[in-house]
């Protein structure tokens, strides 16, 4: 009898140890997928790791999903391919995925939005009711896709209401979570129809107050690579001198204030100043952050441009008149606590076609979901003399 108990104990211990070893293998394989670098040098190791994880079956499912957190987009793609293979295998084997654990995972906003959305869509295929259980609470979710769904539910509900007094608060609520242009536009139209004030510019976090100087020469598009006065100051690690006078394209030029009331923050140089052909302008503003933080600067323009933040060139793009869209470019930057200075170089070429006459830009600051970040002080402005050298 004692011998039998010992044997059972030994068996259970072996199983537990094997399980622990297996869990270690899965964890190591997930680490491999999280460490995949750009290029393809890690592909063979990643393929092996996917195989390791997928043979782990349901035991590997949640560790795999937790592995999405803070993973690079490249790693996310390896991780989600492993998940899809596992989900396919479980379905083919006639086994159900652990529904309640996975639903709890979807609701956990500390997890990766990519992983949560992947699981949500997998569950929804066999359980459409998950939408009503989860989406209404996702209006301010970290995932833009969940937000979009939550906003859409509210918009649908509001659109069916005849009584503006009841519909308006629903639209207001939907507006608070909306991060996509089409939804914002539709909600704003509905609210304005009921004489409600809507500040789209603030909602998106557009920068509307600027100082601007120019035109400088950009004939034959040579100005993009040339550094004029403000750029020379930045290159020399100096603060911008907004009292300076520079040699412009055809005359001396000085900084002037420019602002926009456009809903979508468009600063229209061609209309508000002049469409100087073959020219470039520099525009600057400041943005006060209450802490060090990573943000996205999102820019839309049909013109070539360079952008500096606190004296550092963060991106440059030499492309003319290939369209202008909201959030056309997304530039992740680190802001410091306090005042941050943006300097934009915006270039117009000499094309004569009708579709090549726009000279404009729109810039906003937001988080990675596209939700606006506002400066810590509502009085923060780029007014000449604010945060720059006199």
């Amino acid at each position, binding site marked *: 009898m004692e011998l039998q108990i010992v044997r059972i104990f030994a068996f259970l211990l072996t199983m537990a140890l094997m399980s622990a070893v297996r869990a270690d293998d899965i964890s190591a394989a997930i680490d491999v997928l999280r460490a995949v670098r*750009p*290029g*393809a*040098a890690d*592909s*063979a190791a*990643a*393929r092996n790791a*996917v195989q390791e994880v997928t043979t782990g079956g349901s035991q590997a499912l949640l560790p795999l999903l937790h592995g999405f957190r803070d993973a690079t*987009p*490249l790693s*996310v*793609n*390896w991780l*989600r*391919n492993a998940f*899809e*293979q596992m989900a*396919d295998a479980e379905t083919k084997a006639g086994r159900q995925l652990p529904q309640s654990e996975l639903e709890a995972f979807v609701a956990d906003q500390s997890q990766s939005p*990519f992983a949560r959305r*992947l699981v949500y869509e997998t569950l929804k295929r066999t359980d459409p009711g998950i939408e009503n259980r989860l989406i209404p609470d996702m209006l301010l979710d970290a995932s*833009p*896709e969940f937000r*979009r769904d939550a906003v859409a539910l509210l918009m649908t509900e509001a659109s069916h209401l005849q009584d503006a007094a009841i519909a308006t608060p629903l639209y207001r609520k939907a507006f608070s979570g909306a991060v*996509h242009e*089409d939804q914002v536009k539709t909600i704003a139209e509905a609210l304005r129809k009921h004489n409600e004030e809507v500040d789209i510019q603030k909602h998106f976090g557009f920068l509307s107050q600027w100082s601007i100087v120019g035109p400088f020469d950009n004939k034959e598009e040579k100005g993009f690579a040339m550094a004029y006065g403000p750029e020379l100051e930045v290159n020399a690690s100096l603060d911008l001198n907004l009292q300076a006078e520079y040699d412009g394209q055809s005359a001396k030029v000085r900084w002037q204030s420019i602002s926009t009331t456009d809903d979508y923050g468009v600063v229209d140089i061609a209309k508000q100043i002049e469409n100087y052909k073959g020219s470039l302008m520099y525009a600057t503003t400041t943005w006060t952050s209450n802490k060090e933080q990573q943000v996205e600067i999102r820019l839309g323009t*049909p013109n070539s441009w360079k952008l500096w933040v606190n004296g550092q060139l963060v*991106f*440059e*793009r*030499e*492309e*003319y008149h*290939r*369209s*202008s*869209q909201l*959030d*056309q*470019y997304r530039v992740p930057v680190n802001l410091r606590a306090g005042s941050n200075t943006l300097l934009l170089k915006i270039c117009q070429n000499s094309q004569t076609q009708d579709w090549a006459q726009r000279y404009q830009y729109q810039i906003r600051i937001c988080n990675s979901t596209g939700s606006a970040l506002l400066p810590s002080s509502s009085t923060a402005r780029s007014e000449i003399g604010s945060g720059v050298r006199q």
Partner: protein
Amino acid sequence: MKWIITFLIVAAGTCPLSLAADWRQFRGNAANSVATGETLPTELSGDTIAWKARLPGRGLSGPIVIGEQVFVSASSGYAQDRLHVISIDTATGTQQWDREFIATGRTLTHDKMCNATPTMASDGERVFAFFSSNDLICLDLAGNLQWFRGFGSEFPNASNSLGMSSSPVVLGHTVVVQVESDAESFACGIDVESGVTIWQIDRPRAANWTSPAILPATDQQSALVLLQSSKGLTAVDPVSGSIVWNFDQGASTIPSVTVDSGSIVIPSNGLTAIRPGKDNTFEQLWNSSSISPGTSSPVVVDGLAFALNSAGVLSAGDIKTGERLWQLRLRGSFSSTPITANGYLYLFNEDGNAFVVKPEKDQGIIVSELDLAEKILCSPGAANGALYVRSDAHLFKIAERH
């Protein structure tokens, strides 16, 4: 006997499996829109729609066919940042798998385009899905990720705000991609198995939506890949990336070069035909400004060169002289490139109307039409007696009913 067996083994090793029945890339296996050996239905009707399969999101990419699988890419999501590679059973239209990825590069495009604009390619064992975001994804035929190249993040300025459309081609063990824009341009050869860059060359910095083509091997020269741009046409060794010759008289940036029987027909000043000669030279055969393609790439078959303009006028020219022989006005606007099989041309307009045209020496005759009632912007594929074409929402199989 021994040498015959050796020959067969070598031939089996160098020739891709079941190549004749496949449609492996944009404009087919030879990247020239010719469905060699295929007999497709010529009397199109509702009865010839074998099935239509639902697709997610959007897509301008054409279908490719490997064995009994038809593959198509798609992009979905508000920002077109979700990338799909889908496998569908050719016999039933049943979806076998849909592998989804997130884009690592820029996804915004002109409204008419979308992220899934380039057509996929295959070496028969793997598929390569390329997107406007410059993500190149390699999967095996079961949908298992083999490698992933995010050129959009590796080269963040190599993008076009209107969208990118160049489709990759496969030559031997190399998949060639052309990534050209106003801000940054390159072409590279990627090892099909490992995904590692074998070679990379700088390309003209200018927006370019054309796709590479293939110049088949001759006794004197191994196969070359042809890269077109506003500057002209460059022939590149797909193994080393070295430039073999240059045609520098300019070319279109939308319709792509095509090759038939050694003649290279370039969308350049209308159409220009050249023929490669010895010692990396070429001779110009003719130029014709009266045969000028719009978005669709030219097609050459049976001694005729065809160019379709965006307004639906099909022009036919003599491949020997470039003389325009006839024109045929079709209906609607066209974005897709026609294909040719068993002596007929198959053309799809943007409204979803399919036209089967029998080209004669002196005229083109519309043999039949079929209204698919959905917007068609892709170039079709053909394999095993069937024609495959996709809208945003559906993939259609068109074949004779047996």
